């Protein structure tokens, strides 16, 4: 990659980030439009239905009684024992309402993002886009938090970090618009801060995926075996476990290096690896799972954008750009 002028590099990065964000949201919206709703939707509706059928209260009363802490409040128990038919219907109606609202919200986000993509440079600095990117970033961040709280998925407790490359796309785009409001003398500095934000997001995502691979996450095992099967390569579970251990070490090493010693070769390898792992979903499951690749766009777009920035001389190791470090003095 030849050395790029700073502005040229930033322009290209912003275009890629926009494409990445559009793809991520398109991938994420499939669960809302076609399946059982997003993680956030599941979290809200599950909370609602559990409240309506007094799960927490009845659970507490059961436990107090069973473990001898309290006496039975029969009056209250009778009240919460009312047939939940109506509550269930009310909750179901709310569920549908939220799903409809979320669908509209996502459709609008995608439409505006699509428009920005088409209009290109004409629209890229419009201040209203800050609100758009903020909404997209918060939405993706809340999805990750909801996935953590919902549980039921392997390593769910690490979801906020694992999804960092998704919401970072939106926050980085926001940051680039924000540069308009800082002086020209701070431009390079702010570019470096955004590079650091991207590095932190990549590091979190790669480290957590590495940790999951090291622990032989069941779905990873299926993806490797399934992808290998597509090319008529039949791998045993024992071999794949060893392979995943190696992949885990590699991912964690990349997560460290991207912060400590980012270089173009490393970042391009991370981008290729991110793309390969994202493609393993449709490769293993079938093309119908395209959205699994789309939603992981950040995993390859972000390292590629970092490589572009680095090619323009923006960014570097964490200790050199971290606010308060020698370089900033």
């Amino acid at each position, binding site marked *: 990659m030849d050395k790029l002028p700073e502005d040229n590099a930033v322009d290209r990065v912003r275009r890629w980030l926009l494409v990445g964000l559009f793809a991520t949201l398109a991938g994420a919206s499939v669960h809302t439009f*076609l399946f059982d709703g997003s993680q956030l939707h599941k979290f809200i509706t*599950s909370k609602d239905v559990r409240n309506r059928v007094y799960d927490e209260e009845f659970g507490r009363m059961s*436990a107090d009684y069973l473990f001898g802490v309290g006496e039975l409040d029969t009056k209250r128990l009778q009240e919460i024992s009312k047939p939940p038919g109506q509550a269930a219907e009310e909750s179901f109606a709310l569920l549908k309402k939220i799903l409809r609202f979320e669908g509209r919200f996502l459709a609008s986000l995608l439409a505006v993002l699509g428009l920005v993509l088409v209009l290109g440079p004409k629209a890229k600095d419009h201040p209203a886009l800050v609100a758009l990117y903020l909404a997209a970033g918060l939405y993706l961040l809340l999805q990750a938090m909801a996935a953590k709280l919902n549980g039921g998925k*392997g390593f769910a407790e690490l979801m906020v970090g694992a999804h960092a490359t998704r919401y970072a796309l939106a926050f980085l785009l926001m940051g680039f618009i924000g540069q308009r409001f800082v002086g020209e003398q701070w431009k390079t500095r702010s570019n470096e801060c955004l590079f650091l934000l991207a590095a932190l997001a990549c590091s979190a995502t790669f480290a957590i995926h590495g940790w999951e691979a090291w622990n032989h996450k069941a779905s990873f095992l299926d993806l490797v075996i399934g992808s290998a099967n597509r090319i008529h390569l039949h791998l045993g579970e024992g071999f794949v476990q060893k392979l995943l251990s190696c992949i885990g070490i590699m991912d964690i090493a990349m997560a460290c290096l991207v912060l400590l010693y980012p270089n173009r070769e490393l970042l391009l390898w991370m981008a290729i690896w991110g793309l390969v792992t994202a493609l393993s979903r449709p490769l293993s499951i079938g093309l119908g799972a395209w959205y699994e690749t789309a939603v992981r766009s950040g995993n390859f777009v972000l390292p590629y954008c970092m490589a572009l920035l680095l090619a323009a001389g923006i960014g570097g190791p964490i200790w050199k750009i971290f606010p308060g470090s020698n370089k900033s003095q």
Partner: protein
Amino acid sequence: MTHKFNFLLFVILASWGYGEGLPKLANDNLDKASMAEVLPMLTKMVGTTPAQWRVVWHGDPATQAGIAWSTAQPGKVHKLYYDTEAHGLEVSKYKHTAMAHRSGKYRNDEKSKEDEGILDQVAHCHHVKLEGLEPGTDYHFVIESDGEFSKPLYFRTAPAGDEPFSILNGGDSRSGLVNRCRINLRMAKMVEDNPKILALAHAGDYVNKGNTWHDWRLWLSHNELLTCKDGRVIPIIPTRGNHERAEQSGMYDDVFDVPEWHHTKLPLGLDLITLSSNNPGRGGQLDWLKATNDKVGPVSHWLLTMYHAPIYPGVKDTPACKDDWAKEFDRYYTDIAFEGDGHCIKKSKFIRADKEDKDGVVYLGEGGLGVGQREPKEDRWWIGRAGRGTFVFLLDVTKETLRCRTVLLDGTVWDDLTIPNKAHLRKKKG
């Protein structure tokens, strides 16, 4: 006069229509049971009083069974008195005794936020394995932990002959706790009314957080309601759900003490193959499934499978192992695949080679033992019928047919499906 006549006609037609509505298994009010009456039915967790008992099946339930229970305090001597005759609490009269082969504190592996403040309440589990039992026999038992006794209980082993029998299937009891208690009462009532029902095959997601004592303590106590009025305990054939994740195996293992995937041999040549959709579906588990199918497929009169995450889902998307598992189910003409996870009622079409086929597998699920229900996607090509409700499947097995009724919480039969036998196709394949 005309109005009166119209009104009378309407009343007659409405009554007739009502009479022609969905059939009911029983007319009771279990769907409205008050928890003020239900909670006192449960055993308090005090000292070494045996509580939270369950009978667990896998392997050959005509001759084997696992019995597990909990005590608040660790205790020292954990013993089971059992006999084919009832002796009440006169433990000296029981012909057999068995010591717990495994005892210890439930492993809530991760100290979760939910467990804060109740860590001193984490109970102790005790497991007894019974072998060499007589088929089709009532085994009466009393549990003793350090001189404290359970009430007299019993379970029935699976018969060995060609006697018709029934089993229950359901999943997803991780929320909707009031309805979870009610559906347990419903199942106990169904067994009281039809003693040929042998067991409940549970398709997983017992609790919301499978690594917390906070959630399991309630499920374990509410599960006592799977005990009939005369003390008959309904055995459970367990499956691991995604909320009992594999990397949190400690607690699930302490509750059931069964392998991750297993084979249960039931009467009338019925083989139930239980898989774990939480473990890799394509590695060692698939090899085991293929080997087990090769072993039992050609001789199986009825071939059933059960796992948690649906491969022909009514709500969610399909899992990665779908093609491999479906192909394997097709290979020996599996009759029914029981699934959970989606929180809806689903009956698929008969599916073979990923298309509708009269010799195909019917996929039934997706969990309603308490949980709130989601909206099934009825426009998916594989959906035969779908809906919502707290429900359990009642599977009647005879030599000729499998009849599967979907029974709602109020006893209404929502769906009634009969499946002809395909053993000849399996034999041909073998």
